[in-house]
Protein backbone atom coordinates (compact mmCIF):
# COMPACT_ATOMS: atom_id res chain seq x y z
CA UNK A 1 0.00 0.00 0.00
CA UNK A 2 1.26 3.44 -0.89
CA UNK A 3 1.97 5.74 1.97
CA UNK A 4 3.32 9.28 2.17
CA UNK A 5 5.47 8.34 5.14
CA UNK A 6 7.73 6.22 2.90
CA UNK A 7 8.27 9.11 0.53
CA UNK A 8 8.68 11.60 3.37
CA UNK A 9 11.42 9.53 4.96
CA UNK A 10 13.56 9.81 1.85
CA UNK A 11 13.79 13.56 2.49
CA UNK A 12 15.83 15.42 5.08
CA UNK A 13 14.67 18.65 6.64
CA UNK A 14 18.07 20.35 6.61
CA UNK A 15 18.78 19.45 3.01
CA UNK A 16 15.40 20.76 1.88
CA UNK A 17 15.93 23.94 3.86
CA UNK A 18 19.36 24.49 2.41
CA UNK A 19 18.10 23.86 -1.07
CA UNK A 20 15.36 26.50 -0.62
CA UNK A 21 17.74 29.10 0.79
CA UNK A 22 20.25 28.58 -2.00
CA UNK A 23 17.73 29.31 -4.78
CA UNK A 24 18.78 32.20 -6.99
CA UNK A 25 17.05 34.92 -9.00
CA UNK A 26 17.63 32.76 -12.02
CA UNK A 27 15.71 29.87 -10.45
CA UNK A 28 12.86 32.23 -9.60
CA UNK A 29 12.69 33.59 -13.13
CA UNK A 30 12.71 30.11 -14.56
CA UNK A 31 9.85 29.15 -12.23
CA UNK A 32 7.87 32.22 -13.23
CA UNK A 33 8.31 31.52 -16.93
CA UNK A 34 7.47 27.85 -16.78
CA UNK A 35 3.95 26.82 -17.84
CA UNK A 36 3.89 23.83 -15.46
CA UNK A 37 5.72 24.29 -12.19
CA UNK A 38 7.59 21.57 -10.33
CA UNK A 39 8.46 21.12 -6.66
CA UNK A 40 11.85 22.70 -7.40
CA UNK A 41 10.03 25.69 -8.86
CA UNK A 42 7.91 25.87 -5.70
CA UNK A 43 11.09 25.98 -3.62
CA UNK A 44 12.32 28.90 -5.69
CA UNK A 45 9.01 30.73 -5.32
CA UNK A 46 9.00 30.48 -1.51
CA UNK A 47 12.71 31.26 -1.23
CA UNK A 48 14.11 34.63 -0.12
CA UNK A 49 15.32 35.07 -3.71
CA UNK A 50 11.68 35.46 -4.85
CA UNK A 51 11.00 38.47 -2.61
CA UNK A 52 11.71 41.07 -5.35
CA UNK A 53 9.26 39.25 -7.66
CA UNK A 54 6.22 39.62 -5.44
CA UNK A 55 4.20 41.83 -7.79
CA UNK A 56 4.62 39.61 -10.89
CA UNK A 57 3.83 36.58 -8.72
CA UNK A 58 0.68 38.29 -7.47
CA UNK A 59 -0.40 39.21 -11.01
CA UNK A 60 0.01 35.63 -12.17
CA UNK A 61 -1.72 34.25 -9.10
CA UNK A 62 -4.63 36.62 -9.61
CA UNK A 63 -5.06 35.56 -13.24
CA UNK A 64 -4.75 31.83 -12.60
CA UNK A 65 -7.19 31.96 -9.70
CA UNK A 66 -9.79 33.80 -11.75
CA UNK A 67 -9.38 31.41 -14.63
CA UNK A 68 -10.16 28.43 -12.44
CA UNK A 69 -12.50 29.81 -9.79
CA UNK A 70 -13.92 32.85 -11.55
CA UNK A 71 -14.68 36.05 -9.73
CA UNK A 72 -16.14 34.28 -6.74
CA UNK A 73 -15.27 33.65 -3.09
CA UNK A 74 -16.86 30.87 -1.06
CA UNK A 75 -18.07 31.47 2.47
CA UNK A 76 -18.05 29.02 5.38
CA UNK A 77 -18.25 29.19 9.15
CA UNK A 78 -16.69 27.09 11.91
CA UNK A 79 -18.91 25.48 14.54
CA UNK A 80 -16.93 24.51 17.63
CA UNK A 81 -18.55 21.46 19.20
CA UNK A 82 -16.12 20.79 22.04
CA UNK A 83 -13.00 22.14 23.73
CA UNK A 84 -12.35 18.98 25.73
CA UNK A 85 -8.85 17.81 24.96
CA UNK A 86 -6.42 15.20 26.21
CA UNK A 87 -3.49 16.60 24.27
CA UNK A 88 -0.92 19.10 25.35
CA UNK A 89 -0.09 21.44 22.46
CA UNK A 90 2.14 24.32 23.40
CA UNK A 91 0.36 26.80 21.13
CA UNK A 92 -3.31 25.96 21.66
CA UNK A 93 -5.92 27.51 23.95
CA UNK A 94 -7.62 24.13 24.40
CA UNK A 95 -4.43 22.36 25.57
CA UNK A 96 -5.00 19.93 28.46
CA UNK A 97 -2.82 21.99 30.80
CA UNK A 98 -4.76 25.17 30.10
CA UNK A 99 -7.25 25.90 32.86
CA UNK A 100 -10.39 26.65 30.90
CA UNK A 101 -13.94 25.52 31.44
CA UNK A 102 -14.53 22.48 29.26
CA UNK A 103 -17.71 21.93 27.34
CA UNK A 104 -19.03 19.54 24.72
CA UNK A 105 -22.24 20.67 23.11
CA UNK A 106 -25.33 18.52 23.50
CA UNK A 107 -27.71 17.93 20.60
CA UNK A 108 -30.01 20.62 21.89
CA UNK A 109 -27.16 23.11 22.22
CA UNK A 110 -25.92 22.30 18.72
CA UNK A 111 -29.35 23.09 17.33
CA UNK A 112 -29.31 26.47 19.09
CA UNK A 113 -25.93 27.24 17.52
CA UNK A 114 -27.13 26.04 14.10
CA UNK A 115 -30.15 28.35 14.29
CA UNK A 116 -27.89 31.39 14.72
CA UNK A 117 -25.53 30.26 11.95
CA UNK A 118 -28.39 29.63 9.54
CA UNK A 119 -29.68 33.15 10.13
CA UNK A 120 -26.32 34.44 8.94
CA UNK A 121 -26.92 32.65 5.63
CA UNK A 122 -24.37 29.83 5.76
CA UNK A 123 -24.68 26.60 3.77
CA UNK A 124 -21.18 25.32 4.53
CA UNK A 125 -20.24 24.56 8.12
CA UNK A 126 -16.90 23.39 9.51
CA UNK A 127 -17.22 21.28 12.68
CA UNK A 128 -14.31 21.72 15.09
CA UNK A 129 -13.34 19.88 18.28
CA UNK A 130 -10.30 19.16 20.41
CA UNK A 131 -9.28 15.54 20.93
CA UNK A 132 -11.14 13.73 23.70
CA UNK A 133 -11.69 10.21 22.49
CA UNK A 134 -13.70 9.18 25.56
CA UNK A 135 -16.50 11.67 24.93
CA UNK A 136 -15.98 13.16 21.48
CA UNK A 137 -15.63 9.98 19.46
CA UNK A 138 -16.88 8.62 16.18
CA UNK A 139 -20.30 7.81 17.69
CA UNK A 140 -20.62 11.47 18.75
CA UNK A 141 -19.67 12.61 15.24
CA UNK A 142 -22.22 10.26 13.70
CA UNK A 143 -24.91 11.71 15.93
CA UNK A 144 -23.89 15.27 15.07
CA UNK A 145 -23.75 14.65 11.32
CA UNK A 146 -27.24 13.13 11.33
CA UNK A 147 -28.48 16.04 13.40
CA UNK A 148 -27.12 18.89 11.30
CA UNK A 149 -27.15 17.42 7.80
CA UNK A 150 -30.64 18.69 6.97
CA UNK A 151 -29.50 22.28 7.59
CA UNK A 152 -26.39 22.49 5.41
CA UNK A 153 -25.38 21.81 1.81
CA UNK A 154 -21.82 21.05 2.86
CA UNK A 155 -20.30 19.78 6.11
CA UNK A 156 -16.55 19.77 6.81
CA UNK A 157 -14.72 18.57 9.88
CA UNK A 158 -11.57 19.62 11.69
CA UNK A 159 -11.29 17.13 14.55
CA UNK A 160 -8.79 14.56 15.77
CA UNK A 161 -7.38 12.20 13.12
CA UNK A 162 -9.47 9.05 12.77
CA UNK A 163 -8.97 5.58 11.32
CA UNK A 164 -9.90 4.73 7.73
CA UNK A 165 -12.97 2.70 8.71
CA UNK A 166 -14.21 5.54 10.91
CA UNK A 167 -13.98 7.98 8.00
CA UNK A 168 -15.73 5.39 5.85
CA UNK A 169 -18.61 5.39 8.33
CA UNK A 170 -18.88 9.18 8.49
CA UNK A 171 -18.71 9.99 4.77
CA UNK A 172 -22.15 8.58 3.83
CA UNK A 173 -23.69 10.61 6.68
CA UNK A 174 -22.84 13.79 4.83
CA UNK A 175 -19.18 14.44 5.59
CA UNK A 176 -17.76 16.20 2.52
CA UNK A 177 -14.35 17.32 3.63
CA UNK A 178 -11.84 16.86 6.42
CA UNK A 179 -9.08 19.25 7.46
CA UNK A 180 -6.02 17.84 9.21
CA UNK A 181 -3.10 20.15 9.68
CA UNK A 182 0.27 18.55 10.23
CA UNK A 183 1.27 21.63 12.33
CA UNK A 184 4.92 21.02 11.37
CA UNK A 185 6.81 18.48 9.27
CA UNK A 186 9.84 18.92 11.51
CA UNK A 187 9.68 15.71 13.51
CA UNK A 188 11.74 16.79 16.52
CA UNK A 189 9.96 20.09 16.79
CA UNK A 190 6.62 18.36 16.44
CA UNK A 191 7.48 16.24 19.50
CA UNK A 192 8.45 19.35 21.43
CA UNK A 193 5.13 21.04 20.77
CA UNK A 194 3.02 17.91 21.33
CA UNK A 195 4.46 16.30 24.45
CA UNK A 196 1.33 14.49 25.63
CA UNK A 197 -1.78 12.81 24.26
CA UNK A 198 -2.58 10.85 21.12
CA UNK A 199 -1.48 13.80 19.02
CA UNK A 200 2.11 13.25 20.12
CA UNK A 201 2.42 10.54 17.47
CA UNK A 202 3.91 12.36 14.48
CA UNK A 203 3.49 9.37 12.18
CA UNK A 204 -0.20 8.76 12.91
CA UNK A 205 -0.92 12.36 12.00
CA UNK A 206 1.32 12.27 8.94
CA UNK A 207 -0.55 9.23 7.62
CA UNK A 208 -4.01 10.76 8.15
CA UNK A 209 -4.39 12.12 4.59
CA UNK A 210 -3.60 8.63 3.26
CA UNK A 211 -6.35 7.19 5.47
CA UNK A 212 -8.75 9.87 4.25
CA UNK A 213 -7.82 9.19 0.65
CA UNK A 214 -8.41 5.47 1.08
CA UNK A 215 -11.80 6.20 2.63
CA UNK A 216 -12.67 8.18 -0.53
CA UNK A 217 -13.19 11.58 1.04
CA UNK A 218 -14.38 14.24 -1.39
CA UNK A 219 -12.05 16.97 -0.21
CA UNK A 220 -9.23 17.27 2.28
CA UNK A 221 -7.43 20.23 3.76
CA UNK A 222 -3.74 20.40 4.54
CA UNK A 223 -1.52 22.95 6.20
CA UNK A 224 1.01 23.77 8.86
CA UNK A 225 0.85 26.15 11.78
CA UNK A 226 3.06 28.97 10.65
CA UNK A 227 5.45 30.10 13.34
CA UNK A 228 6.40 26.72 14.79
CA UNK A 229 9.29 26.15 12.41
CA UNK A 230 10.89 27.66 9.31
CA UNK A 231 7.78 28.37 7.23
CA UNK A 232 9.52 28.00 3.89
CA UNK A 233 10.68 24.46 4.64
CA UNK A 234 7.38 23.48 6.25
CA UNK A 235 5.54 24.80 3.20
CA UNK A 236 7.78 22.80 0.89
CA UNK A 237 6.85 19.62 2.76
CA UNK A 238 3.19 20.58 2.56
CA UNK A 239 3.59 21.01 -1.20
CA UNK A 240 5.36 17.63 -1.40
CA UNK A 241 2.48 16.05 0.53
CA UNK A 242 -0.07 17.68 -1.77
CA UNK A 243 1.85 16.58 -4.85
CA UNK A 244 1.90 12.97 -3.61
CA UNK A 245 -1.77 12.98 -2.56
CA UNK A 246 -3.05 14.42 -5.84
CA UNK A 247 -1.41 11.62 -7.76
CA UNK A 248 -2.41 8.88 -5.36
CA UNK A 249 -5.99 9.91 -4.51
CA UNK A 250 -6.87 11.58 -7.79
CA UNK A 251 -10.60 11.70 -7.10
CA UNK A 252 -10.16 13.96 -4.09
CA UNK A 253 -10.07 17.78 -4.06
CA UNK A 254 -7.50 19.57 -1.93
CA UNK A 255 -7.54 22.76 0.07
CA UNK A 256 -4.95 24.64 2.02
CA UNK A 257 -4.87 27.15 4.82
CA UNK A 258 -2.10 29.20 6.41
CA UNK A 259 -2.84 29.76 10.08
CA UNK A 260 -0.24 32.05 11.60
CA UNK A 261 0.42 31.53 15.28
CA UNK A 262 -1.80 33.93 17.20
CA UNK A 263 -1.70 34.82 20.86
CA UNK A 264 -4.09 33.07 23.25
CA UNK A 265 -4.22 33.14 27.02
CA UNK A 266 -0.73 32.03 28.10
CA UNK A 267 0.45 31.89 24.50
CA UNK A 268 3.57 30.73 22.72
CA UNK A 269 5.81 33.17 20.92
CA UNK A 270 6.48 32.16 17.30
CA UNK A 271 9.94 30.71 16.67
CA UNK A 272 9.98 32.35 13.29
CA UNK A 273 7.69 35.22 12.44
CA UNK A 274 6.16 35.56 9.02
CA UNK A 275 5.31 39.06 7.89
CA UNK A 276 2.43 39.99 5.59
CA UNK A 277 4.69 40.29 2.58
CA UNK A 278 5.87 36.72 3.15
CA UNK A 279 2.36 35.38 3.60
CA UNK A 280 1.38 36.92 0.27
CA UNK A 281 4.47 35.34 -1.28
CA UNK A 282 3.40 31.97 0.07
CA UNK A 283 -0.20 32.26 -1.16
CA UNK A 284 1.03 33.17 -4.64
CA UNK A 285 3.67 30.42 -4.64
CA UNK A 286 1.01 27.80 -3.93
CA UNK A 287 -1.26 29.16 -6.66
CA UNK A 288 1.56 29.17 -9.21
CA UNK A 289 2.42 25.63 -8.18
CA UNK A 290 -1.15 24.34 -8.23
CA UNK A 291 -3.88 26.10 -10.20
CA UNK A 292 -6.70 23.94 -8.87
CA UNK A 293 -5.93 24.19 -5.16
CA UNK A 294 -8.59 25.74 -2.93
CA UNK A 295 -7.07 28.26 -0.55
CA UNK A 296 -8.75 29.73 2.50
CA UNK A 297 -7.75 32.59 4.75
CA UNK A 298 -8.34 32.55 8.49
CA UNK A 299 -10.11 35.11 10.67
CA UNK A 300 -6.81 35.22 12.55
CA UNK A 301 -5.76 37.73 9.92
CA UNK A 302 -6.70 41.39 10.14
CA UNK A 303 -9.56 43.03 8.25
CA UNK A 304 -7.27 45.06 6.06
CA UNK A 305 -5.03 42.13 5.17
CA UNK A 306 -7.99 39.89 4.36
CA UNK A 307 -9.54 42.55 2.13
CA UNK A 308 -6.37 42.83 0.09
CA UNK A 309 -5.89 39.06 -0.16
CA UNK A 310 -9.24 38.41 -1.85
CA UNK A 311 -7.98 39.02 -5.40
CA UNK A 312 -4.61 37.34 -4.80
CA UNK A 313 -5.57 33.70 -4.88
CA UNK A 314 -7.93 33.06 -1.98
CA UNK A 315 -10.98 30.97 -2.84
CA UNK A 316 -12.77 30.67 0.49
CA UNK A 317 -13.11 32.71 3.61
CA UNK A 318 -14.88 32.46 6.96
CA UNK A 319 -16.65 35.28 8.74
CA UNK A 320 -18.47 36.02 11.94
CA UNK A 321 -16.55 33.11 13.47
CA UNK A 322 -16.46 32.12 17.14
CA UNK A 323 -13.75 29.70 18.24
CA UNK A 324 -15.39 28.57 21.48
CA UNK A 325 -18.05 25.85 21.82
CA UNK A 326 -21.37 27.60 22.33
CA UNK A 327 -19.93 30.86 21.06
CA UNK A 328 -22.86 31.74 18.80
CA UNK A 329 -25.80 31.19 21.13
CA UNK A 330 -25.24 28.94 24.15
CA UNK A 331 -22.38 30.66 25.95
CA UNK A 332 -21.03 33.55 23.88
CA UNK A 333 -18.64 34.81 26.56
CA UNK A 334 -16.52 31.67 27.07
CA UNK A 335 -12.82 31.45 26.31
CA UNK A 336 -11.86 31.09 22.65
CA UNK A 337 -9.27 28.76 21.12
CA UNK A 338 -7.44 31.70 19.63
CA UNK A 339 -8.08 35.39 19.23
CA UNK A 340 -9.81 36.47 16.09
CA UNK A 341 -8.55 39.57 14.33
CA UNK A 342 -11.28 40.04 11.81
CA UNK A 343 -14.52 40.37 13.75
CA UNK A 344 -16.78 41.49 10.93
CA UNK A 345 -20.15 39.81 10.46
CA UNK A 346 -20.91 37.54 7.53
CA UNK A 347 -22.90 40.31 5.86
CA UNK A 348 -20.05 42.78 6.21
CA UNK A 349 -17.64 40.26 4.71
CA UNK A 350 -20.04 39.50 1.85
CA UNK A 351 -20.30 43.24 1.22
CA UNK A 352 -16.51 43.60 1.20
CA UNK A 353 -16.23 40.69 -1.29
CA UNK A 354 -18.76 42.39 -3.58
CA UNK A 355 -16.93 45.70 -3.28
CA UNK A 356 -13.80 43.90 -4.50
CA UNK A 357 -15.67 42.81 -7.63
CA UNK A 358 -16.33 39.23 -6.54
CA UNK A 359 -19.48 37.29 -5.89
CA UNK A 360 -19.83 35.77 -2.42
CA UNK A 361 -20.92 32.15 -2.86
CA UNK A 362 -22.84 30.56 0.01
CA UNK A 363 -23.75 27.31 -1.66
CA UNK A 364 -21.51 25.26 -3.94
CA UNK A 365 -22.37 21.72 -2.99
CA UNK A 366 -25.48 19.66 -2.51
CA UNK A 367 -26.60 16.83 -0.27
CA UNK A 368 -27.47 14.92 -3.43
CA UNK A 369 -23.77 14.71 -4.33
CA UNK A 370 -22.89 12.58 -1.31
Amino acid sequence: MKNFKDLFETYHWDEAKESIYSKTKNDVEQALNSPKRTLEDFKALVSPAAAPYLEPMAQLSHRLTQKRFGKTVQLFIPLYLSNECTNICTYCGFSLDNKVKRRTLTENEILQEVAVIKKMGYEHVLLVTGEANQTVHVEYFKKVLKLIRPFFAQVSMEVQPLDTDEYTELIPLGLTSVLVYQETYHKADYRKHHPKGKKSSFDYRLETPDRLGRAGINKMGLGVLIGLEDWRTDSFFTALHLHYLERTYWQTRYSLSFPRLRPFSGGLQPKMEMNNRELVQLICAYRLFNEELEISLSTRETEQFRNHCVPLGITSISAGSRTNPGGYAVEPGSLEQFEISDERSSLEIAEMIRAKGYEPVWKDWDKVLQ
Partner: protein
Amino acid sequence: MLKIADKEFSSRLFTGTGKFSSLPLMQEALFASESELVTVALRRVDVNNRKDDLLSYLKHPRINLLPNTSGVRTAKEAVFAAQLAREALETNWLKLEIHPDPKYLMPDAVETLLATEELAKAGFIILPYIHADPVLCKRLENAGAAAVMPLGSPIGSNKGLKTIDFLEIIIEQSTIPVIVDAGIGSPSDAARAMEIGADAVLVNTAIAVSENPVQMASAFKMAVEAGRMAFMARLAKQENYAVASSPLTAFLDEEF
Protein backbone atom coordinates in the same frame (compact mmCIF):
# COMPACT_ATOMS: atom_id res chain seq x y z
CA MET B 1 -32.39 26.63 -37.35
CA LEU B 2 -30.74 24.43 -34.79
CA LYS B 3 -33.01 21.79 -33.36
CA ILE B 4 -32.18 19.70 -30.33
CA ALA B 5 -34.82 17.15 -29.33
CA ASP B 6 -38.05 19.07 -29.91
CA LYS B 7 -36.68 22.55 -29.29
CA GLU B 8 -35.52 25.05 -31.87
CA PHE B 9 -32.80 27.58 -31.22
CA SER B 10 -32.07 30.70 -33.20
CA SER B 11 -28.84 31.29 -31.27
CA ARG B 12 -26.01 28.80 -31.54
CA LEU B 13 -24.16 30.23 -28.58
CA PHE B 14 -24.85 28.43 -25.32
CA THR B 15 -23.51 29.91 -22.12
CA GLY B 16 -22.71 29.10 -18.51
CA THR B 17 -23.59 30.93 -15.31
CA GLY B 18 -20.52 30.36 -13.14
CA LYS B 19 -17.54 32.56 -12.34
CA PHE B 20 -19.26 35.95 -12.83
CA SER B 21 -18.41 38.70 -10.37
CA SER B 22 -22.09 39.35 -9.65
CA LEU B 23 -25.49 38.04 -10.62
CA PRO B 24 -26.69 41.30 -12.22
CA LEU B 25 -23.57 41.34 -14.40
CA MET B 26 -24.13 37.68 -15.31
CA GLN B 27 -27.66 38.52 -16.40
CA GLU B 28 -26.52 41.46 -18.49
CA ALA B 29 -23.87 39.31 -20.20
CA LEU B 30 -26.36 36.54 -20.92
CA PHE B 31 -28.74 39.03 -22.48
CA ALA B 32 -25.93 40.47 -24.60
CA SER B 33 -25.00 36.96 -25.76
CA GLU B 34 -28.62 36.37 -26.84
CA SER B 35 -28.08 32.81 -25.69
CA GLU B 36 -31.19 30.68 -25.40
CA LEU B 37 -29.69 27.76 -23.50
CA VAL B 38 -27.89 28.43 -20.24
CA THR B 39 -26.27 25.86 -17.97
CA VAL B 40 -26.79 25.98 -14.22
CA ALA B 41 -24.84 23.88 -11.73
CA LEU B 42 -27.25 22.02 -9.52
CA ARG B 43 -24.77 22.41 -6.66
CA ARG B 44 -25.10 26.19 -6.82
CA VAL B 45 -28.91 26.18 -6.67
CA ASP B 46 -30.83 26.09 -3.43
CA VAL B 47 -33.56 23.68 -4.49
CA ASN B 48 -35.61 24.26 -1.37
CA ASN B 49 -35.69 27.96 -1.93
CA ARG B 50 -38.01 28.96 -4.75
CA LYS B 51 -36.63 32.48 -4.53
CA ASP B 52 -33.08 31.33 -5.10
CA ASP B 53 -31.04 34.32 -6.20
CA LEU B 54 -29.30 32.68 -9.14
CA LEU B 55 -32.53 31.37 -10.64
CA SER B 56 -34.36 34.65 -10.26
CA TYR B 57 -31.73 36.31 -12.44
CA LEU B 58 -32.32 33.69 -15.15
CA LYS B 59 -36.05 34.16 -15.47
CA HIS B 60 -36.52 35.35 -19.03
CA PRO B 61 -38.73 34.01 -21.83
CA ARG B 62 -35.73 33.52 -24.14
CA ILE B 63 -33.61 31.64 -21.61
CA ASN B 64 -33.96 27.87 -21.28
CA LEU B 65 -32.19 26.29 -18.34
CA LEU B 66 -29.83 23.39 -18.81
CA PRO B 67 -29.02 21.99 -15.36
CA ASN B 68 -25.63 20.32 -15.11
CA THR B 69 -24.49 17.56 -12.80
CA SER B 70 -21.11 19.06 -11.92
CA GLY B 71 -19.78 17.34 -8.79
CA VAL B 72 -21.07 13.82 -9.46
CA ARG B 73 -18.47 11.11 -9.85
CA THR B 74 -20.48 8.10 -11.01
CA ALA B 75 -23.46 7.19 -13.20
CA LYS B 76 -25.42 6.32 -10.09
CA GLU B 77 -24.91 9.77 -8.57
CA ALA B 78 -25.71 11.38 -11.91
CA VAL B 79 -29.06 9.59 -12.14
CA PHE B 80 -29.93 10.75 -8.65
CA ALA B 81 -28.86 14.33 -9.41
CA ALA B 82 -30.84 14.29 -12.68
CA GLN B 83 -34.05 13.46 -10.87
CA LEU B 84 -33.47 16.24 -8.38
CA ALA B 85 -32.67 18.71 -11.16
CA ARG B 86 -35.84 17.79 -13.02
CA GLU B 87 -37.91 18.39 -9.93
CA ALA B 88 -36.17 21.57 -8.83
CA LEU B 89 -35.76 23.31 -12.18
CA GLU B 90 -38.81 21.85 -13.89
CA THR B 91 -37.00 20.67 -16.99
CA ASN B 92 -36.06 17.23 -18.30
CA TRP B 93 -33.03 18.66 -20.10
CA LEU B 94 -29.70 17.78 -18.59
CA LYS B 95 -26.09 18.50 -19.31
CA LEU B 96 -24.59 15.28 -18.10
CA GLU B 97 -21.11 15.83 -16.74
CA ILE B 98 -19.42 13.13 -14.73
CA HIS B 99 -15.90 13.97 -13.74
CA PRO B 100 -14.37 11.85 -11.04
CA ASP B 101 -11.17 13.84 -11.48
CA PRO B 102 -11.68 17.14 -9.64
CA LYS B 103 -8.35 18.57 -10.81
CA TYR B 104 -8.76 18.68 -14.56
CA LEU B 105 -12.49 17.85 -14.54
CA MET B 106 -11.95 15.16 -17.16
CA PRO B 107 -15.19 13.40 -18.11
CA ASP B 108 -15.54 9.69 -17.39
CA ALA B 109 -16.47 8.01 -20.68
CA VAL B 110 -17.66 4.75 -19.12
CA GLU B 111 -19.92 6.28 -16.49
CA THR B 112 -21.25 8.86 -18.93
CA LEU B 113 -22.35 6.17 -21.37
CA LEU B 114 -24.05 4.18 -18.61
CA ALA B 115 -25.87 7.23 -17.27
CA THR B 116 -26.94 8.35 -20.76
CA GLU B 117 -28.51 4.95 -21.46
CA GLU B 118 -30.44 4.99 -18.22
CA LEU B 119 -31.52 8.63 -18.28
CA ALA B 120 -32.54 8.67 -21.95
CA LYS B 121 -34.75 5.65 -21.27
CA ALA B 122 -36.30 7.56 -18.39
CA GLY B 123 -37.27 10.39 -20.73
CA PHE B 124 -34.50 12.90 -20.10
CA ILE B 125 -33.04 15.04 -22.89
CA ILE B 126 -29.38 14.26 -22.37
CA LEU B 127 -26.49 16.39 -23.57
CA PRO B 128 -23.34 14.60 -22.40
CA TYR B 129 -20.07 16.43 -21.87
CA ILE B 130 -17.28 14.15 -23.09
CA HIS B 131 -13.87 13.84 -24.64
CA ALA B 132 -13.56 14.49 -28.35
CA ASP B 133 -13.79 10.75 -28.95
CA PRO B 134 -15.58 9.91 -32.20
CA VAL B 135 -16.41 6.33 -31.22
CA LEU B 136 -17.79 7.38 -27.87
CA CYS B 137 -19.95 9.97 -29.62
CA LYS B 138 -21.48 7.30 -31.82
CA ARG B 139 -22.07 5.09 -28.79
CA LEU B 140 -23.80 7.97 -27.01
CA GLU B 141 -25.92 8.64 -30.05
CA ASN B 142 -27.08 5.01 -29.98
CA ALA B 143 -27.70 5.28 -26.27
CA GLY B 144 -30.19 8.07 -26.86
CA ALA B 145 -28.26 11.28 -26.33
CA ALA B 146 -30.00 14.35 -27.81
CA ALA B 147 -26.68 15.98 -28.71
CA VAL B 148 -23.01 15.45 -27.86
CA MET B 149 -20.76 18.00 -26.21
CA PRO B 150 -17.11 17.13 -26.96
CA LEU B 151 -14.44 19.29 -25.40
CA GLY B 152 -12.18 21.60 -27.38
CA SER B 153 -9.49 21.55 -24.69
CA PRO B 154 -9.48 21.12 -20.89
CA ILE B 155 -12.40 22.92 -19.27
CA GLY B 156 -11.65 26.46 -18.13
CA SER B 157 -8.27 26.40 -19.89
CA ASN B 158 -9.10 28.92 -22.67
CA LYS B 159 -6.72 26.93 -24.88
CA GLY B 160 -9.04 26.75 -27.87
CA LEU B 161 -9.62 23.82 -30.22
CA LYS B 162 -6.78 21.48 -29.31
CA THR B 163 -8.91 18.52 -30.35
CA ILE B 164 -9.85 19.87 -33.76
CA ASP B 165 -8.89 16.77 -35.76
CA PHE B 166 -11.22 14.63 -33.65
CA LEU B 167 -13.96 17.25 -33.62
CA GLU B 168 -13.94 17.19 -37.41
CA ILE B 169 -14.48 13.42 -37.43
CA ILE B 170 -17.25 13.71 -34.84
CA ILE B 171 -19.01 16.40 -36.86
CA GLU B 172 -18.66 14.37 -40.04
CA GLN B 173 -20.14 11.24 -38.48
CA SER B 174 -22.77 12.56 -36.14
CA THR B 175 -26.49 12.43 -36.81
CA ILE B 176 -27.26 14.46 -33.69
CA PRO B 177 -26.12 18.04 -32.98
CA VAL B 178 -22.48 18.53 -31.94
CA ILE B 179 -21.85 21.27 -29.41
CA VAL B 180 -18.22 22.13 -28.78
CA ASP B 181 -17.90 22.65 -25.06
CA ALA B 182 -14.95 23.60 -22.87
CA GLY B 183 -11.73 25.35 -23.69
CA ILE B 184 -13.10 27.97 -26.07
CA GLY B 185 -11.01 30.93 -24.99
CA SER B 186 -11.76 33.62 -27.54
CA PRO B 187 -14.36 34.56 -30.15
CA SER B 188 -11.97 33.36 -32.88
CA ASP B 189 -12.01 29.87 -31.31
CA ALA B 190 -15.79 29.91 -31.36
CA ALA B 191 -15.84 31.09 -34.97
CA ARG B 192 -13.42 28.30 -35.92
CA ALA B 193 -15.61 25.67 -34.27
CA MET B 194 -18.60 26.95 -36.22
CA GLU B 195 -16.61 27.09 -39.47
CA ILE B 196 -15.76 23.39 -39.22
CA GLY B 197 -19.45 22.66 -38.83
CA ALA B 198 -20.19 22.48 -35.12
CA ASP B 199 -23.88 23.02 -34.48
CA ALA B 200 -23.27 25.22 -31.46
CA VAL B 201 -20.66 26.13 -28.87
CA LEU B 202 -20.84 26.50 -25.11
CA VAL B 203 -18.80 29.30 -23.55
CA ASN B 204 -18.49 30.26 -19.90
CA THR B 205 -15.05 31.17 -18.50
CA ALA B 206 -13.99 33.29 -21.47
CA ILE B 207 -17.02 35.51 -20.99
CA ALA B 208 -17.33 35.51 -17.20
CA VAL B 209 -13.68 36.16 -16.42
CA SER B 210 -13.02 38.79 -19.09
CA GLU B 211 -12.58 42.42 -18.05
CA ASN B 212 -15.87 43.29 -19.67
CA PRO B 213 -18.18 40.27 -19.75
CA VAL B 214 -21.04 42.09 -21.46
CA GLN B 215 -18.90 43.23 -24.37
CA MET B 216 -17.24 39.82 -24.57
CA ALA B 217 -20.63 38.09 -24.66
CA SER B 218 -21.59 40.27 -27.58
CA ALA B 219 -18.28 39.53 -29.33
CA PHE B 220 -18.93 35.79 -28.96
CA LYS B 221 -22.43 36.20 -30.34
CA MET B 222 -21.07 37.84 -33.48
CA ALA B 223 -18.23 35.33 -33.84
CA VAL B 224 -20.64 32.40 -33.64
CA GLU B 225 -22.89 33.99 -36.25
CA ALA B 226 -19.92 34.75 -38.53
CA GLY B 227 -18.53 31.25 -38.16
CA ARG B 228 -21.89 29.69 -38.94
CA MET B 229 -22.38 31.91 -41.94
CA ALA B 230 -18.93 30.98 -43.24
CA PHE B 231 -19.74 27.30 -42.81
CA MET B 232 -22.96 27.69 -44.75
CA ALA B 233 -21.20 29.65 -47.51
CA ARG B 234 -18.58 26.89 -47.76
CA LEU B 235 -15.06 28.14 -47.12
CA ALA B 236 -12.82 28.27 -50.14
CA LYS B 237 -10.68 25.17 -50.01
CA GLN B 238 -7.13 25.43 -48.75
CA GLU B 239 -5.00 23.87 -51.43
CA ASN B 240 -2.49 21.41 -50.12
CA TYR B 241 -1.02 20.59 -53.52
CA ALA B 242 0.37 22.50 -56.43
CA VAL B 243 -1.81 22.85 -59.50
CA ALA B 244 0.32 25.08 -61.73
CA SER B 245 2.10 22.40 -63.63
CA SER B 246 1.74 18.65 -63.90
CA PRO B 247 5.16 17.12 -64.41
CA LEU B 248 3.86 13.62 -63.71
CA THR B 249 0.79 13.68 -65.90
CA ALA B 250 1.71 16.16 -68.65
CA PHE B 251 2.81 13.27 -70.83
CA LEU B 252 -0.85 12.29 -71.26
CA ASP B 253 -1.36 15.43 -73.31
CA GLU B 254 1.46 14.59 -75.61
CA GLU B 255 0.81 12.84 -78.81
CA PHE B 256 2.07 9.33 -79.01
